[in-house]
């Protein structure tokens, strides 16, 4: 029998419809793979096999009775930032302890209502703060990808899967689920997708409900999928997105059938190439990839236009004011009073300090401190207010660009995947990982990363597409053209299954 885990979501959907295999067989295949791979990759912080089998059996019943829903019986992973009813949810932070929500996130509920099967909770950077999945309280996620040495053999250095949705990207890349939920505040879907050869889309702010997702920075957070292919990501986003009266920032707009636009091509599409993204120190490989992307779209009939997004250089510093400011307030609720861990002290202040010192990791503490500082009296105008002004200017840059182009093409990251510890000592180097992705969050636009090729070391590289608000459809059809031209990247050799 073929390895069911190697199927794409669309293929698995067809297989279930044709009754080539059952949902339970499909689920069991993934559960088996997780059991073997997770000790090496650490993509899942909590596999939920019993839960998955119950859902899969239900799906089989529905398929048998001809009542299959759009994602019936398709096994996926769920980032630990999404609250799951009766199933431990920690945002990969110690501070939440064994917290088990009594509620399900709206995005999660949408997926289960569409028939998807949850295989387990996926690892991520603590509270989604990180670009390498090295800040999780449950330890690092290891990328299934490895560099290739000059001899053509795999090196043994462990590479990061990107972050913060590192569990999601690694699980999808290693075929430990068909697709995964993820969230993106400054690049947390697109950067890990780029580093693992997977497809990730952060939709327009407001497209997916934030209700029931542990908040990092409310004005930037947005849920989206990481999947194996452009089509799979379209299937996922269609199911995840909805208008939710429980989230007043979610938008009451119809969710289109994204799959329907995939074959439409890019003939006559105007593609913008922002000159400000040619940053100093960008690796020649990334430049080459970008040029290739331009060439693919051109030959598919798109027109290429140089554009300027003049405030791009202020995006990263402004982001690292806005995001920590919001996080410093959003994380105030983790005070040891109602749920999660509590470390008692002699008085109330000591209890707060002990609890939060014990519960939060170093990166989270750093961002809370930065955020508290930039909001404090006397600094608010100089930092937070100025950052908000930059944000307005960034939005304006894009508004002007949309007069000339329909979509923007850039690299997703300034460099290929890196090894553990390479950037952890220098927070600024780590923050630079987000340089191409944060502007999209600051402007609330949809952004997508699609694999473009491999680096000289044999590791994946991603191209980023940026679209107009609520025009995810253009991203999907453009991404499909890139995927068709670049070809799907070779599945990494399953070194983690050995031994």
């Amino acid at each position, binding site marked *: 029998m073929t390895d069911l885990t190697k199927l794409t979501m669309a293929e698995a959907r067809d297989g279930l419809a044709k009754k080539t295999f059952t949902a339970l067989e499909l689920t069991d295949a993934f559960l088996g793979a997780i059991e073997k791979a997770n000790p090496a990759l650490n993509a899942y912080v909590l596999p939920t096999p019993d839960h998955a089998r119950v859902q899969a059996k239900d799906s089989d019943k529905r398929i048998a009775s001809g009542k299959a829903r759009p994602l019936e019986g398709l096994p996926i992973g769920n980032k630990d930032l999404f609250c799951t009813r009766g199933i431990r949810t920690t945002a990969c932070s110690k501070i939440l302890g064994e917290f088990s929500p009594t509620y399900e996130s709206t995005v999660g509920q949408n997926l289960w209502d569409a028939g998807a099967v949850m295989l387990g909770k996926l690892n991520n950077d603590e509270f989604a703060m990180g670009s390498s999945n090295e800040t999780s309280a449950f330890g690092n996620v290891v990328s299934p990808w490895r560099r290739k040495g000059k001899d053509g053999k795999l090196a043994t250095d462990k590479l990061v899967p990107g972050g913060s949705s590192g569990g999601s990207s690694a699980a999808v890349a290693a075929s430990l689920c068909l697709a995964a939920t993820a969230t993106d505040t400054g690049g947390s879907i697109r950067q890990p997708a780029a580093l693992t050869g997977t497809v990730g889309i952060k939709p327009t702010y407001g497209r997916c409900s934030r209700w029931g997702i542990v908040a990092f920075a409310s004005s930037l957070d947005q849920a989206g999928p990481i999947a194996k292919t452009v089509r799979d990501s379209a299937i996922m986003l269609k199911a995840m997105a909805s208008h939710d009266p429980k989230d007043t920032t979610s938008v009451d707009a119809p969710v289109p059938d994204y799959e329907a636009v995939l074959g439409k091509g890019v003939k006559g599409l105007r593609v913008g190439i922002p000159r400000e993204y040619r940053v100093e120190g960008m690796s020649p490989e990334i430049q080459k990839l970008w040029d290739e992307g331009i060439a693919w779209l051109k030959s598919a009939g798109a027109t290429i236009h140089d554009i300027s997004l003049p405030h791009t250089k202020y995006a990263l510093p402004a982001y690292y004011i806005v995001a920590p400011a919001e996080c410093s307030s959003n*994380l*105030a*609720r983790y005070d040891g009073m109602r749920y999660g861990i509590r470390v008692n002290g002699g008085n109330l202040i000591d209890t*707060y300090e002990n609890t939060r010192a014990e519960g939060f990791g170093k990166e989270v503490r750093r961002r809370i401190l930065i955020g508290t500082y930039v909001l404090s009296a006397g600094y608010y105008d100089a930092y937070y207010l100025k950052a908000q002004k930059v944000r307005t200017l960034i939005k304006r840059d894009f508004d002007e660009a949309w007069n000339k182009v329909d979509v923007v093409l850039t690299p997703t990251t300034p460099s290929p995947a890196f090894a553990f510890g390479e950037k952890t000592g220098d927070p600024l180097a780590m923050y630079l990982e987000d340089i191409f992705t944060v502007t999209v969050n600051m402007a609330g636009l949809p952004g997508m990363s699609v694999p473009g090729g491999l680096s000289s070391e044999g590791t994946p590289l991603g191209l980023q597409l940026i679209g107009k608000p609520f025009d995810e459809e253009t991203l999907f059809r453009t991404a499909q053209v890139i995927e068709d031209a670049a070809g799907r990247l070779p599945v990494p050799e399953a070194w983690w299954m050995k031994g």
Partner: protein
Amino acid sequence: MNSQKIAEKPKSKNLIEGATGDWEVIIGLEVHAQVASNSKLFSGSSTGFGAPPNSHVSLVDAAMPGMLPVINRECVAQAIRTGLGLKAQINNRSVFDRKNYFYPDLPQGYQISQYKQPIVGEGAVEISVDGETLTVGVERLHLEQDAGKSLHDQHPDYSYVDLNRSGVALMEIVSKPDLRSSKQAQAYVTKLRSILRYLGTSDGDMDKGNLRADVNVSVRKPGDKLGTRCEIKNVNSIRFIGQAIEYEARRQIDIIEDGGTIDQETRLFDAVKGETRSMRSKEEAHDYRYFPDPDLLPLEFSNAYVEELKSKLPELPDEKRARFIKSFGLSAYDADVLVSERSSADYFEKVAEGRDGKVAANWVINELFGRLNKETKAIEDSPVSAAQLGAIVDLIGSNAISGKIAKDLFEIVWTEGGDPADIVEKRGLKQVTDTGAIEKAVDAIIAANPEKVEQAKAKPSMLGWFVGQVMKSTGGKANPAAVNDILKAKLGI
């Protein structure tokens, strides 16, 4: 000598005497009124009072991970209505901010409030104190969440938290520093409370903590620049507001006159000792790190919406007072008393409708309110309905009963109930206007008291004694005017 008498400047009654001369006290109030609504400002939980601890708490109120606030439109409407009642600027766009601080009864770690852009801007409240009318400026009104309640007396080692109040909507109404005496401050809060109750936007129940005030007090020599102020937090009765201001003003004057300076600080009022005490100094003040709440979009509504709410506003105390004076010919004092509560005004209006307004006012204020006060009953619980009191007034008006009998009748209706006209009929309380019957009674009295008749001729004021005797013999039912006339004629005075 060239001594010339200098006309003494009339001393303002609002000044406080100190050892170094007179002082002026400057008062501004921040009144927190709980919005009358079924559910909380950002969640669907009930706002019901008196429920067991933590029984009205939603996931949002408890700040569970991933929970988001959703504005309760009814609370917004209530704030707009209140703004309109305060003749204030209504802001079609306002912004919710987060006020960040840690406390166990504040689950989110921040209070959602409105800081730079409140829903209601400047307005005014008119008050009258000792016959003097004064306009008090309102600086702003904003919506905010209430916190939960910390209970420190439930366990020897632990404090408990009740989150039933957590997230309940409050309106903070900030006055300008226009008040100059404790009496004015009390009148302001009384009037504000009355307006809120008329509008139905807050029940203003101070016993339940649904209306409380932070009182800002400073003192200065008249004409000097403003002094340093102290803020007295959470004063929860109108009487305490007066006491707190009196105490605080005197405390500040004493400090300054002893050569000291006032420290800007937050104080609390100890109702048992009748004094204010320091809570925290300016240095210890929190840095609340206000910033716009990213979970909530700016609050926006149209002018048409405001107009629609405006068109449905009830008549407010000031307008009602003016109308009562004009249409019923009431004195300003009586009108004030009657309009202070909407229920009293409504009751009065039912009694006065189609009758003599002054007589109706007299009966409502003197007999009814007097009796209600004596038994500490609210007007809603009055055993005598407006219709019954109206019937009594009718019986007086038609000369069916005398004023004295009317009081007895009121007492019967109060204790036994029933239709006043029936009672008069059945119990034979009807006034005797038959002159023949009265003449008979007068004749009998005159015949029995020849000495008094002689005395009365010399001293006409003795007439009163005869009137009393006739009334006594007729069981109070004789028409007093007729008795008077007949007596005068028979006695020849």
